[in-house]
C-alpha cells in the first residue's frame, strides 16, 4: 500500500520536474553567459591555463577547493572515529580469501603502472582532462588492488598522516603567500609562462599536485579503515 502512495507521489514530482527542465533550451547559450566568457578569456589570456575547469577549481574558486579537501579529511577522520575499536579487538581480515598466483603476479606488475598513471594525471591537470582529485583516486585504486590481493600488505598509518598534513599545510602556505605578496588569498605569485607548457599557470600546477597527494592519502586511509573492519 505504502509503495503505491510513494509511486504516485514520485510520478507527480517527475511530471513537474520534467516540465520545468523542458522549458530550458537544450544546447543553447543561456544562463550566466557573462560569467562563462570572463572565465574562458581570463583563463586563456591572464593565467595561461589550457584546462578552464582546472583554472576555475584551483584559482577562481580556490578557497572552495580548500574547503572541499577539508571535507574529505573530515569524513576520513569521522570514519576512523566511528569505527574505532580497542586494539586487542582487531583481528585478521576475515572477509578476504587468499588470492590465486595469477592475481598476485598480475597485481605486482600493475601496481607501479597504476601509480604512474595517477601521477601523470595530476601533474598534467592544467593541460588535459584530469587533475588532483582524479589522479589521487587512481593511486588509491592501486593500493586497493594490493590490499585485496595480499593479506598482510599493510600501509603505515603514520606515513599517510604525514603526507596528508604536509600537503594540506603547503596548500595553506601558498594561499598565504598570495595574501601577503599580492593582497588576496590564493592569488598567483609565480610567473605564468606559456599556454600548453608543463610549467604554465603559476601556482595552479603546484596546488593540484599537493591536492593529488592529499586526496590519495585520504582515500587510502578510508579504504584501509574499511578493510580492517570485521563487522
Amino acid at each position: 500500500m505504502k509503495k503505491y502512495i510513494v509511486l504516485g507521489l514520485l510520478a507527480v514530482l517527475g511530471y513537474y520536474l520534467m516540465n520545468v527542465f523542458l522549458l530550458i533550451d537544450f544546447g543553447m547559450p543561456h544562463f550566466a553567459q557573462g560569467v562563462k566568457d570572463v572565465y574562458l578569456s581570463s583563463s586563456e589570456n591572464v593565467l595561461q591555463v589550457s584546462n578552464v575547469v582546472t583554472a576555475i577549481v584551483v584559482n577562481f574558486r580556490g578557497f572552495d577547493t580548500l574547503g572541499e579537501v577539508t571535507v574529505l579529511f573530515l569524513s576520513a577522520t569521522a570514519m576512523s572515529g566511528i569505527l574505532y575499536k580497542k586494539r586487542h579487538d582487531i583481528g585478521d581480515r576475515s572477509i578476504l580469501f587468499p588470492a590465486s598466483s595469477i592475481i598476485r603476479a598480475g597485481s605486482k606488475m600493475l601496481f607501479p603502472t597504476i601509480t604512474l598513471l595517477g601521477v601523470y594525471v595530476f601533474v598534467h591537470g592544467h593541460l588535459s582532462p584530469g587533475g588532483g582529485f582524479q589522479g589521487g583516486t587512481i593511486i588509491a585504486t592501486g593500493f586497493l588492488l594490493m590490499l585485496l590481493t595480499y593479506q598482510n600488505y599493510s600501509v603505515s598509518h603514520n606515513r599517510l598522516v604525514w603526507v596528508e598534513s604536509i600537503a594540506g599545510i603547503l596548500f595553506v602556505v601558498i594561499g598565504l603567500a598570495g595574501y601577503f605578496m599580492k593582497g588576496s588569498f590564493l592569488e598567483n605569485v609565480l610567473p605564468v609562462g606559456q599556454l600548453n607548457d608543463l610549467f604554465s599557470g603559476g601556482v595552479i600546477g603546484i596546488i593540484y599536485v599537493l591536492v593529488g597527494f592529499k586526496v590519495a592519502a585520504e582515500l587510502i586511509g578510508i579504504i584501509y579503515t574499511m578493510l580492517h573492519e570485521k563487522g
Partner: protein
Amino acid sequence: MEKYLDILEIVIYGSAVALILIGLYGTLTKKSLIKIVLGLSIMDSGIHLLMIALGYLKGGTAPIFSKGYENAADRMVDPIPQALVLTAIVIGFGVTAVALSLVIRLYRHHDTLRIDEIKNLKW
C-alpha cells in the same frame, strides 16, 4: 539535426529525472540500510547528470585550450557546472563513506540491517 537535438534533450533530462526518482524511491520504501545509502548515491548521480546537461552547448567542444583549439572559446561548453560537479562528486563520496561506516556501527550493535527491527534508539 534539430530533431536529433530534441530526442537528445528528452533522453538526457529524462534519464536525469529518472535517476533522481529511482534514488528517492529507494530511500523512501526500502527497509535495508545499505539500500537506503545506495538510493542516496543514485540520486546524487542523477543531479550530476542534470547539472552537466545544463551546461551543454550545441556542437560545443571541451573547455580546454589544447593545440588547435586556441580560438575556439565561443563554441566551448560551460565550464562552471563541470567544476561544480567535480566538487559535488567528492562531497558525495565523503557522505557515502560516513553513512556506510554508521551502518557498520549500527549492524555491530543490533545485528541487523533492517530499520524496522531497530526500535530502541539507545546505543
